[in-house]
């Protein structure tokens, strides 16, 4: 019974990761039959690459800010649409809908809204106002990217939190109400602690997803302006295929994989410790 699953695991995960590790130690350009072994040169070059380091920081910023926003908006909207009315059912679909769209479509859609000649700036200029540099200024472009990532992704968080809210003990909520707890007190002392495992899942999933941000960068900002919104995943593909440096790209992907796993494990452990504290 375990055999097919194990074979799939090996083929789809162990082999690619192993080959990635191997390629990261070579100078493979994507074409040559016999790439030369270069040891740790690609990793050393990575530490000297201002562009890769910058992309790493941009990725971490997106992941940190995006994860917090996804959780806050996810939980906030979940609380708003938690209940068995037709209107809530409608809003749940509306909130989840952006996640159904391809990230590429979302990016092109928002570039038409936020671009220099986009809907928003068209309206602003028609009113005699200045154009806002949503996608043309590095800081604005990064903020726009994070905002669109959150818009496109928080539907999943809403669904997860909604599922979590169904598990909150009705008895506890009722007891809090009888004891005269305010809504705020009930939320922070009953609902939120009960949601702790869901919060952990949300944080880890959001973090891992955002650390791999790629599609939306391509379609919304193209990594610009001046490379200011290049993420680690974007740069990996850029270096690998535009620059014919698959060895260097593989080294970057190995580092990204290690960082992602490390951060996800750290968040999960911290949350587990916090959960234990709550239970104690």
């Amino acid at each position, binding site marked *: 019974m375990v055999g097919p699953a194990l074979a799939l695991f090996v083929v789809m995960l162990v082999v*690619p990761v192993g*080959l990635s590790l191997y390629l990261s130690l070579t100078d493979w350009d994507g074409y040559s039959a016999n790439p030369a072994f270069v040891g740790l040169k690609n990793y050393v070059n990575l530490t000297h690459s201002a562009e890769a380091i910058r992309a790493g920081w941009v990725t971490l910023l997106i992941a940190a800010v995006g994860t917090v926003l996804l959780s806050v908006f996810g939980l906030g909207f979940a609380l708003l649409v938690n209940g068995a009315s037709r209107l809530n059912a409608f809003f749940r679909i509306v909130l989840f809908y952006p996640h159904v769209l391809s990230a590429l479509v979302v*990016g092109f859609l928002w570039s038409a809204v936020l671009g220099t000649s986009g809907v928003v700036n068209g309206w602003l200029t028609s009113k005699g106002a200045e154009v806002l540099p949503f*996608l*043309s200024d590095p800081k604005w472009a990064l903020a726009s990217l994070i905002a669109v990532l959150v818009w496109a992704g928080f539907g999943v968080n809403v669904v997860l939190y909604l599922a979590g809210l169904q598990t909150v003990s009705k008895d506890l909520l009722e007891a809090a109400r009888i004891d005269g707890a305010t809504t705020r007190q009930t939320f922070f002392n009953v609902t939120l602690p009960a949601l702790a495992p869901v919060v952990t899942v949300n944080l880890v999933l959001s973090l891992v997803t955002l650390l791999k941000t790629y599609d939306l960068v391509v379609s919304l900002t193209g990594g610009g302006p*001046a490379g200011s919104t290049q993420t680690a995943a974007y740069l*990996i593909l850029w270096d690998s295929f535009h*620059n014919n*440096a698959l060895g260097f*790209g593989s080294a970057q992907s190995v580092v990204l994989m290690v960082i992602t796993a490390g951060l996800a494990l750290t968040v999960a452990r911290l949350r587990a410790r916090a959960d234990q504290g709550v239970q104690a």
Partner: protein
Amino acid sequence: MARSARKPGRKLGLLTSVVILVGAAGCGGGFSDDKGAAGDSTGEVRMLVNITPNLTKSYWEGLVKPFEDANPGVDVKIEAPTGSGVKDTLPQLLAAGNAPDVVETLMADKVLAPQMLDLTDQAWTKDTPLVEQASLDGKVYTVGVGQQAQSLVFYNKDAFAKAGISAPPKDLDELTAAMGKLKAAGYLPLQTAGDYVTGLQLLQLSDPSIATKHPDWYQQINSKQAKVGETMLPLLERYQSWIKNGYVDKNALGLKDVGAQTNFLSGKAGMYVMGSWFVRTADDAKPTFDLGVFAAPTEKGQPSPGPQGVTMAAPYMVLKSTKQRDLSVKLVQWLVTDKTAVQSQLAQDGNFRKGYTEKLSPLGKQVQDILDQAPKQVAQGEGYGANTLPQGFNGEWNKAVQSLYTGKSAKDVAARIDSWMGSKS
């Protein structure tokens, strides 16, 4: 620079796919170092092509139909890229031991050439456009259908008239002066955009003056007798002054190429620097103003017109690993020499070739005149053949030029690109 495929795609899984596939290749046939097998006189020829709004799969299938009809038993199988373009699909296929017989779009460089068939002994290649310039160490790997003129400035003649500009500028000082007049007349002087456009336009503008001042620019750069940033610094400084004076939109980086074209064709801007493929877009748009084109100006004191940046249109190569070598070569020969096939490809993607002028639009004829009058045709950016810069130069240059909009100085940009070049040596 050919319009590189910039369509986003399923790249994220691509690296993993390549990794899996190279493993498969390691277990299987791997790469071929021979010159392919001659093959039969019938059978299947697989051709990997670029797919764009102009060059659809059905267009390609229709293009090769006459070849199939003339060669009974031959089936030309058109293959679209599975990645975001031909450039990232070909390594996948090679790694999987499943390479096509013919590839369109790419040009041979030192990385690609070892995988491609040497066509030097094919007499018919001698009469194809840019074949000599694209050759590598004297060997022909790439043949093309036509040329793309690069150093072109499309302009709004009505705007020029309103601004009191009587003739197209011939040098860069005149160009800058014209920008001032256009701005005073209420026009955006030069339309640009983010994406790949920013860096491309500056390369296109630089071709005539750089090639005049440094006839062996690529050789000087590669032998470290000159630096890219240093030689480009005067133009970077000029561009910086254009941004400062509002001759380009300071928010242009928030525009994509299509948005820039729309702005220019709607009559809001005076000029738009772009390659000859823009002719087809402009002809289809039928702008309400009188649209003209002139060759990119040279530096003051240099002869005008200067050398014209050109790239090969619809380049083809035959893969060395092919099992249908003779049929593949025959197909490529037909694609680049058959009059009807050539005419069709030129018209479909707005390209040019000497002797194929009868179906050109008035704007197209102006471009052909510019090509004919250019004293020399030169490579641009990453280049081709003997005139090449490291892979990735165009993208790095684009990012560096865009940083002029985000507060960097021309000297910063020059230093950045020289530093990048240094890291590639």
